[in-house]
């Protein structure tokens, strides 16, 4: 199993490294015409890299049929969860929601929450019947006891589009980057809105 993991992990590290270097070179050569666009573009690249890595890892697992029994679906998900966790064992908060991206997210969400519909939007997000304090950790399994928050369409439309079935979710005012395939918190940021 370890040997099986080692190949995808090495592949991931090299992929992540080259993507980062590529992005750095690109940004070093060409100063940003628009800082906001650049921040989004870099965020999208980081997300894309994650999805590519996740998909490669998933390819090493046996195909999951579109319709199956709960035990098989659960086995597949947990196997993928473990692979992704192992491959990102050094992942930390802010790797994807970097400080500049966090700032931008707050900027993007501010008019939505401060606008005339802000209260409704806040109510819909808080509407998931969960009042506890779930422990959040990057690369950890999304807490099973926490229902998924509704993310109003207006919020989704204001944030950069996510590929590969990654999702934005909220727990309180924390914005989670959630991978439903592996059921893990890819990254999260605090105080996404007030």
């Amino acid at each position: 199993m370890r040997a099986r993991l080692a190949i995808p992990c090495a592949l991931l590290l090299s992929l992540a490294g080259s993507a980062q270097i590529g992005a750095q070179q690109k940004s070093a050569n060409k100063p940003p015409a628009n800082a906001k666009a650049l921040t989004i573009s870099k965020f999208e690249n980081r997300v894309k890299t994650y999805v590519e890595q996740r998909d490669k890892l998933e390819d090493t697992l046996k195909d999951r049929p579109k319709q199956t029994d709960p035990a098989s679906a659960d086995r597949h998900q947990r196997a993928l969860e473990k692979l992704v966790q192992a491959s990102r064992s050094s992942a930390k908060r802010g790797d994807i929601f970097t400080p500049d991206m966090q700032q931008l997210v707050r900027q993007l969400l501010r008019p939505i929450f401060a606008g005339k519909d802000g209260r409704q939007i806040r109510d819909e997000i808080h509407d998931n019947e969960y009042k506890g304090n779930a422990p959040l950790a990057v690369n950890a399994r999304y807490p099973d006891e926490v229902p998924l928050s509704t993310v109003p369409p207006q919020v989704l439309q204001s944030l950069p589009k996510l590929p590969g079935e990654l999702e934005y979710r909220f727990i309180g005012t924390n914005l989670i980057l959630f991978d439903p395939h592996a059921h893990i918190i890819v990254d999260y940021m605090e105080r996404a809105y007030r």
Partner: protein
Amino acid sequence: MRNRLLARSIVVCAALAASCSTAPRFTERPAAVQVAAPSQRGQSPQGQMPLPNRDDSLKFAVIGDNGNGSHDQYDLAAQMAAWHQRFPFTLVVMVGDNLYGSERPQDFQNKFELPYKALLDEGVKFYASLGNHDSREQRYYKPFNMDGKLYYSFKAPKQDVRFFALESTYMDDEQLKWIEDELKKSNEKWKICFFHHPLYSSARTHGSELKLRAVLEPLFLKYDVSLVLNGHDHVYERIKPQNGIQYFVTGSGGQLREGDLRKGSPLTAKGDDTSQVFMMMEINGDDLWFAAVDKSGTVIDSGSMTRRKE
């Protein structure tokens, strides 16, 4: 056991019929959808259900917020099975929160397969949509017939009907585009959408999802959706037709929030927050009949409507 339950429901229905013979008729008569007065509430000549029960009709049931594994869920499921003997619905639409709490393989058994065993054994097909308590992995669970998709549509086995299942916790542009394309290309007479969050609800706990309504309702109007089925609020509520569309909240398939409905809400045509409820529906041509049945087997609401037409 079944016979005893049926006998009890027949007695209650007959009693209700007598008490409701002077039930007021609705004053609201939208152009496209007309909901008949619930004159058949509990009414059942010779103790039969208040639906035509024609051979060539599409018959289906609706449940929501059901999967908590409680005695209440099992009791309501037993009523569904009992009614199925007389009203053989071929499919069940699930409006989300199909499993509460943990979702280990044994939970699928205890919160779905066992309570609905009688129906599953009879070959009744369940079509699920996902609620906020549901793991995304449920889409792969074969008995939910989602074919690995978070949102999907399917043509009913009878009559000219298409169902559209949406994932309302995450209505992104991709899904919005999908539903618009699906509705646009659908040429079925009946377009029925089902998903978890209600666009209209008089319940205190959640209530109407206004932001979702802002993006979905224009599409429903544009493409002649006639009926929308939701849950999330743990009550039964028949909404007065809104812009010609009939909405139901059926979120008490296992869960229940007693006293949660706002009394005197201008949205409510009929509501119940005292018992678990499921719905039975029948479509034949341009007509749809519905009946809401509570945990004791009593028909607490019924009526009919016609589909919206271009």
